């Protein structure tokens, strides 16, 4: 097995929040299947907070565990808090990742950030459209 700890294994075997949110308020995609991993995050926002977070991930065990952890951490955060979520926070919460898998933890936070940006852009567009 890859050198994953129990926490990572748990999030891989029992990933939280897998799926798609129909009519999501924001969608973010990060990574590229050519490079190995790709993640899509879906968010639902209520009162400037992440009311729901779901994801789909193509990638290795670490990529799936990271996505799951990001979704769990992000849920309930304000958008600003979530934008401050770093790959290191995620890797830390997972109690460490193998060195060559650290790039996966970058992708997870980035995909979430992209979803928030997407939400904000849409809000701006709506505001502009008013």
């Amino acid at each position: 097995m890859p050198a994953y700890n129990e926490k990572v294994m748990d999030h891989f075997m029992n990933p939280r929040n897998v799926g798609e949110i129909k009519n999501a308020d924001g969608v973010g995609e990060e990574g590229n299947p050519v490079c190995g991993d790709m993640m899509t995050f879906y968010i639902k926002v209520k009162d400037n907070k992440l009311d729901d977070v779901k994801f789909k991930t193509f990638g290795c065990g670490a990529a799936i565990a990271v996505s799951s952890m990001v979704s769990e951490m992000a849920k309930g955060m304000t958008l600003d808090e979530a934008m401050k979520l770093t790959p290191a926070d995620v890797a830390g919460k997972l109690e460490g990742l193998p060195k060559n898998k650290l790039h996966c933890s970058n992708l997870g936070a980035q995909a979430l950030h992209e979803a928030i940006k997407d939400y904000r852009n849409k809000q701006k567009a709506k505001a502009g459209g008013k």
Partner: protein
Amino acid sequence: MTKVYLDNAASTPILPEVKEAMLPFLGEIYGNPQSLHDWGDTARMAVDEAREKVAGLIGAQAEEIIFTSGGTESNNLAVKGLALAQQTKGKHVVVSAIEHFSVLHSARTLEKWGFKVTEVPVDKYGVVNPADVKKAIKKDTVLVSIMHANGEIGTIEPIKEIAKITKELKIPFHTDAVAAAGTIPVNVGDLGVDALSLAGSQFYGPKGAGALWVRKGVRIIPLLDGGIQEGGRRGGTENVPGIIGLGKAAEIATAQMQSRIKKLTPLRDGLIKGMPAKIDHVVVTGHLTNRLPGHASFCVEFIEGEAMLMLLNSKGIAVSSGSACTSRALKASHVLIAIGLSHEIAQGSVLFTLGLETTKKDIDYVLETMPPIVDRLRQMSPLYDKFIKTGKGGK
């Protein structure tokens, strides 16, 4: 829990008879084969007997066998040693694009030493075209090294046809038969090659023991300088227990070759036919029929190999993968890229290599276990999502 080991390409179990043969050499027989006394004699005679057996497996003469620490050392010794021995004649070598890293990286080292290397391509089944080898050969070519069978996609190469070309042009031809020797009939006379690598851990012998066969009269520069062991071609105290185990494994493989092939081929075909029948969007990698008898390899679209490995492992099934995520360098297998697969498809690589312990029940278990695993990962996969919604992204 059901336990199904289908990673025999990574390492086979050791046969009980092989272990049995090795035991005295981990116990009462501890002499150094080079020593001039009874203790040394006993060890040397056993090593010589093992040499006969390994030679027997490939139709060679005993004194042509150089014992090594495994396939990687055999390939390093062959590629570097044969090229260096002839460097006054020229500095060009030809390999295929799907060689094992022990050949490819040895060739890269030769480049550092001023050699030029040509990589011959393969077709979508992983087959080298002998005409391409002929084209690649130049005036100053001093070595051709093309593998006998590929461990990742199972394809068997047309070694005999390539040897006809190299013979005519009088260029030494090495074949990495690590995945082939002990598994399919390999006869150096019949093949017409000049050097051939093999390793015990591929045919129920011990790890740490391999051999390089070099045709009598072909010069080779040692890789391990030192004492006069192996006729001065490989220094170092002989790994006596390993060599004895290798000899025993070779002897048994010689005797059981046909019955093993008969046993493994239908099981393999059960997977090769069963997998695409049970799961949509599965590509068989390698040649469909001209492949190693126990070797079934696939790419499952829209999902990634490491995740598949981990879920299969949780169901007691051991396999391997050539996906980028399973490699430490995070690069997709050069073999899968060479047969023309996209990086995306190559990510779904999964490799089942069957062995003597494999049963029909194991195959059924795999065919039953795989679909829900693939399903689960596809349900998670944004690529599959897109494909379902748009029809785009499939092969």
